[in-house]
Every structure is written in C-alpha cells, then in structure tokens.
C-alpha cells in the first residue's frame, strides 16, 4: 500500500508539474512569475519524492487510528455535501451577516 508520506510528495510533484505545464500556455508576461516559482517547486518536489522513496518505511498506523481518520473525513465531506445541497450556508450566512453586519 502507498505510504502517506510518499503520497504527499507525489501530490506536490503532480501539482507543480501540472502548474508548470499550464503556465507554458499563458502569454509571456503572465507566465514569467509562475515559471520562476513553479520550476524550483518542481525540482524540490522531485528531490523530496526521491528522499521519501529511499527512506525506511514508517511505522504501521493502527487500524483504530485509520478508522478514526476515515470517520473524521467522512463526517467533514458529508457535512460539506449536506450544506451544499440543503442550502444551509444561505440560512447561516443570512443570520450571521445580520448579526455581524
């Protein structure tokens, strides 16, 4: 199974690769800074991923901890979906906007 620390490095590598690739499609003035930042970011991500792949595997996470993590994520996502589809933010937003101005 893919370890979490490798997954994080891989996510960052993919994010920078995609951002640099996209930046090349922009006008020269618009892509200058994204490339100045994105290329070092990509290089650092490659270094980090290689470092993580070479390191010893991390201690196995207990199934109890994994279960709790899964439950917390599910709760957060379900809450987001609940808010999204039932329009709750609108209600809460109106109330709090009224209170705080």
């Amino acid at each position, binding site marked *: 199974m893919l370890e*979490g*620390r490798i*997954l*994080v490095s891989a*996510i*960052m590598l993919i*994010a*920078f690769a995609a*951002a640099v690739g*996209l*930046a090349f499609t*922009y*006008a020269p*003035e*618009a892509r200058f*800074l*994204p490339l100045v*930042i*994105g290329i*070092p*970011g990509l290089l*650092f*991500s490659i*270094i*980090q991923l290689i*470092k993580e792949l070479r*390191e*010893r595997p991390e201690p196995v996470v207990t199934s109890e*901890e994994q279960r*709790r*993590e899964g*439950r*917390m*994520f599910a*709760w*957060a*996502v379900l*809450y*987001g979906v609940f*808010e*999204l589809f039932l329009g709750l*933010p609108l209600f*809460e*937003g109106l109330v*709090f*906007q009224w209170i*705080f*101005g």
Partner: protein
Amino acid sequence: MHFDVAFSTLFDLLTTPRLLFLMAIAVPMGVFFGSTPGLGGKLGLVLLIPFVYNMDQLTGAVFLCAMHAVVHTGGSIPSILIGVPGDGPAAATALDGYAMTKKGEAGRALGASFGASTVGGLLGAMFLGLSLPILEPIILNFSPAEFFLLAILGITFIATLSGDSFVKGMIVGLFGLMCAFIGLDPSTGSPRFTFGQIWLWDGLSVIVAVLSMFAVPEMISLGVKGRAYDISAETAAKLQGSSSSPEPVSRKVSYAQIFHGMRDVAQHKWLVLRCSLLVAAIGVIPGLGGDAAAWMAYGHTVQSSKHPERFGKGEVAGVIGAETGSCAKEAGSLLPPLFFGVPGSSGMAIMLGAFLMLGIQPGPTMLTEHVNIVWSLIWALVIANIFAVIMLTATGPWIGRLGTMKASFLIPYVLVFALLGCYLYGGIWQNLILVLVMGSLGYLFKRHDWPRAPFIIGVILGKIAEDSLQKAIGLFGASFFWRPISLILIAMILASVGFYLWRSRRTNKAVPSHA
C-alpha cells in the same frame, strides 16, 4: 512623533462604545482560545477573520489585535494548573508554574502570570509606540523595489518556519506562491490557473487558505487523536512528572493568592522591565517567534537570579520572566507585517492576511495615511491587556476550569464556523468544496510533518511580490536591484538562507539522523 494622533486615537477608542464593546468581547475570546489546549491563538484568528470581513478597517483590526494580544495570557492557565502547555512559549511558564501548583501555590502562580503578562504587554506596546519616530525615516525611503525584495526576504523566512526540513518548507511555500497566482494576471488581464471557473478570477482568498490549512486539519487531528495535546518526552521530563503525578495536586485558587502573585510582580519590577525590553526588541526580528522570546526571557531570569538552583522547582520569578517574555513580544512582532509586509511568524502571517483582507496595505502609507490605525492597534494592545487582567483576576477562582475543557467537544462548532466563514467571504458556495479539498491536503501535511505556515506566507506574499515587481520595473527598469537599500536587502536574503543552511548542517552533525 505623532503625539496628536496618538492621543486622539486613544480618545476615540475610549469614547466609541462599539469599539469598547468589541474589545470586551475579543478579550474573553482570546483567553478562551489561549487556555483551551488544542485551540490556540492561530486558530482563534483564523476563526474570527470571516466575521471582520464586513467591518471597517479600524474596527476589524482592533478586534483581531485585542483578541490576539491576550492569547498568551490565557495560555498560562493550563500550563500552571495542569502542566499542559498549549504552545511553545507556555512551556516555559509550565516549568515553574506547575511546580508551584504542586506546592499548593496555584493561585499565586496565576496571579504572577496575569500581572507579568499585563505589564509585559503594556511595556511591549510602549516600545512599539516609541520606536515609530526612529523607524519613520527608514520606512518612508522604501520604494516598490525594496518591497519586492522584502517580499522575497519574507519568503526566505519560510526556511526558518520549516521545522526540520528545508525542502518540505520550500515546497509548501512555493505551492502557496503558486496559489497566489490563481486569478487574473495583473499585467495582461488573462486568467491563470482558473480552469474556466469565473469564481476563481478574483484569486484564492486568504480566508479560504487559512481556514483550510489550519482549522480543518486541526479539528480532524483532534478527532483522530481524541485528545488535545501531546507532550513530548523531553517536555514531560522537564515538567517533572506532569499531570500523571501520583501525588494529589490542589488546584484551589483564592483571591488572596492571586494578589500575592501580583505583589511578586511588583517586587520583581526590574526583572519585568529587562525582560520586556529584551523580548520586545527580539519580537521585531522575523523568524524569532514566541517560543524563542519566552525561553530567552526565562533564560535571562535564571541567569540574573541569585538562586538559579530554585528554578524548575516552583520559583515565582520563573513564571514572571516567561510570562513577561510571551506577552511583551506581541507588540514588536506587529512591526514587520504592518510596515514591511513581512510576517515574522505563522500567527503574524494570518494577521497580515486579515489586514490585507480589511484593505490595510502594509508599507509607508501606514505612517503617512493610516497612522491612526497604527496607534489604534497600539492602544488596543494596552486596553486588551488591562481588560484581561481585570477579567482574569475577577474570575480567578473559577478560571481554572477552562484549562480542563475537552477541546474535542468543540470540533463540530469549529468546523461549522470554518465552513461558514468560507461561505460568508463573497457568498461563493464553491469555496466550501475548496476548503474541504485543501483541508484534506492540510491534514496530510500535518499528519506527515510538513509545515503549513509557509503556505499562508506564500499566498500572502505572492500577490505583494508580483505587484511590487511590476511597479519596480515600471519605475526603475531591471536596474532596481542596484539601489543601495536593495543591495542591503539582497545581502539579508542571502544571509538568511546561509544562516539556516549553516544551522541545519551544525544540527545534523551534532544529532545523527534517525533515517
């Protein structure tokens, strides 16, 4: 010196019921966030930012500043009563504070802590006010060229906030900078990284960034761990047994004990003055955050004592030194973000984000056009500290219950406020999805020891750097690097990176890697 502005702003603050009311709300909130292990000042700022969005600049800034000013005062409560420091600076207080509680002197320790943090906060604010005339000519000489380099300097501080891994810190910081480029390009007006979504044209909001990176991961982590705090073996050893001590510990607090502690502060007046000035000056230096300041003040207290052997065993001077240090640095740490746009710590990065969101642009205009805001913030620090000591002294015998509150009860409320805050900013429902996705990434960062503060610094400084670079090139052309102040700043950038690399090499040599 703007004496007229200084006193007129104080008059305005004291005669505006709305501002006084908001400060009176902000102070208990700050104490609550500080005293509940697992929450803390950063999360407090993050959660309150959405509610200042519609306030005017002055009101919003005063509200946040007053809340943040007393967080460390609240943080001393669990440190003293249960030996659980909520953050790094509070660990210095716990050393002697908890030992005093074990000796049955909890009230005296709390009184000393409240008194010292109030006097420290007041002296720190005075230091900031008195340093303005000295800084004014320097700040007014800065042009967009220097502000671009200052933004780069701020980004190099990412390294100092990166913990053990420079590479991880740089990746997260650069990722934050990339996220700052989301939206319309200021020079061509063409959309960048918007994926055809019009709601992204305005860019990634600082609110969404801070809530995703701090509020959501902290709450998920609290839910997973089921407890609010983790004491390292080292800290536990320092605390000499901590809360697992088999001896019964009396946490009874009386008014007499609290006033005894306050009298101790008066007896150590020179120590308080020395610690305040030392730490207020250190607070100005970006990168040397609260931890260093509190431990430096504690170290100075031990060094200058005639009985250094008593420290760690319940010496009241230890509590006074550490608390003065924690609170005196607050005012000094406001200086870099307000005048140079460079946050010196993750808390100040969030504060800077809030200032920018309120439309407060750091730089020379803070001294020319918005000096009233600067003085209002200084007075807000003063008033908040006075409010805090009155409130804490009055509620002293009962305040200890705050420190034993289970932070995990707060998870649903904090998450609701976080998601609500994201929605309130512009009324964009898509921000809810963004905060959940980025919050998950933030949790992965936290879970695998990736620093998160550099992301916020990147998001904030990215926009400042890009704007300043364009203005600098427009004003001076590419030769702006050769201006004298620019050269000094370039030297500082190189020195900052060099110092970090030298320090990590030395640490690696001293401590063999576990990998």
